[in-house]
């Protein structure tokens, strides 16, 4: 069903976003000025200033101009994955920066290299702090999967379209049901993330909830 594809897409985008987002965030906070200003910030600015739809078309048509044939799925994965990486990097960056500077100092003082300190001390804490913001990103990405409709991928919206076309059905009913399905998937995802947040909470610490759209 289209909904499964939508979920798969969302997870793929988020996954790529996560894998690329963390290095971006670490580079932005701990990297030298060169890395930060010439690599990380341009990438982040580029993917955040341009509409998702334009990004999708850019990657899809860009591939053919470079004589690569990319399936719509891969083009969408790259476009939306990197876009999510840009947004996620900002979430992680905020979380990393909110960690007390003493943590890094203590880690270095027992002889940890910067890399080890980031890996064993900073990131475990930062990821926990990031969960609320990440939950927001999950919702956004899931909703944005609807845009891959434009590349012809059969996710939920396109399936809806097919149903309407084939059965001459009640268009409004079909689309409202699509909306409902999205709502449920988003809702349950967020509930799951809330549960994870509770489960992995550091005993004794309260993590503040922030609701802003990225």
């Amino acid at each position, binding site marked *: 069903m289209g909904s499964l594809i939508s979920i798969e897409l969302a997870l793929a985008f988020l996954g790529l976003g996560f894998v690329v987002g963390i290095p971006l965030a670490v580079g932005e906070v701990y990297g030298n000025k060169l890395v930060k200003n010439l690599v990380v910030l341009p990438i982040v*600015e*580029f993917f955040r*200033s*341009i*509409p*998702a*739809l*334009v*990004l999708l*078309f*850019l990657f899809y*048509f*860009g591939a*053919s*101009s470079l004589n690569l044939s990319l399936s719509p799925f891969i083009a969408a994965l790259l476009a939306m994955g990197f876009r999510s990486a840009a947004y996620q990097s900002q979430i992680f960056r905020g979380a990393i920066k909110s960690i007390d500077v003493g943590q890094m100092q203590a880690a270095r003082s027992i002889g940890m290299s910067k890399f080890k300190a980031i890996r064993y001390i900073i990131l475990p804490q930062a990821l926990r702090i990031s969960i609320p913001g990440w939950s927001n990103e999950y*919702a956004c990405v899931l*909703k*944005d*999967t*609807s*845009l891959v*409709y*434009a590349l012809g991928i059969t996710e939920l*919206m396109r399936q*809806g379209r097919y149903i*309407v076309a084939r059965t001459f059905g*009640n*268009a*409004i*009913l*079909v*689309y*409202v049901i*699509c*909306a*409902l399905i*999205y*709502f449920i998937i*988003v*809702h349950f995802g967020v509930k799951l993330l809330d549960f994870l947040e509770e489960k992995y909470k550091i005993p004794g610490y309260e993590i503040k909830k922030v*609701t*802003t*759209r990225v």
Partner: protein
Amino acid sequence: MNFFEFAWSILPKLLPGALTSLKLTVLAISIGLILGIPLSLGRVYGSKVIYTITTIYIEAFRGTPMLTQLFILYFGLPSIGIMFPPFTAAVIGLGLNSAAYQAEYFRGAIQAVKDGQMVAARSIGMTKIKAIRYIILPQMFRLVIPSWSNELILLLKASSIAYMIQVSELVSVGRQIASRNFRTFEVFLVIAFIYFVIVEVLNRILHSVERKIKIPGL
């Protein structure tokens, strides 16, 4: 024709599309503003019934994709007899959606205004309505500027979705041009560049506005 000459040549053709996008954005954010403030007030100060209704509205529009909302308005409504032309459907859809997000930003800003303000206003005899109008809202407007600026830019980017319901905004015009000369990638590079520039410019303007209206010390 190399890339730069090509880009230069299509800029004037893209202009009407860009203007439509901007028009869409401005109209939608205005609707969002006009609807969003009462929605947020309803959520903060309203009775249980009002709270429930406003929450359902906000959750519905924030929890579902913009594309779906536009599809419902443009492709769905005709099946029960209401037909909107593309631009109108887009304005309504983007506007209603923006109202939901703006309502949450306003609510956050209202709650950021310290409790003591309302209590102090009531203690000099103001009614709830007067207190909201003269004390709470003026502070809220200043506090909400960063999120509101963010919303404006998000809306500008979202206007590209109107392409899917056949509005002749920037992306749509771009595809039309591309269909004639087949240099689709380059067309979209130009479009991406246009968005990038507009967003950066808007960001700068909004930041300086923000700085000028700031309440000293807050």
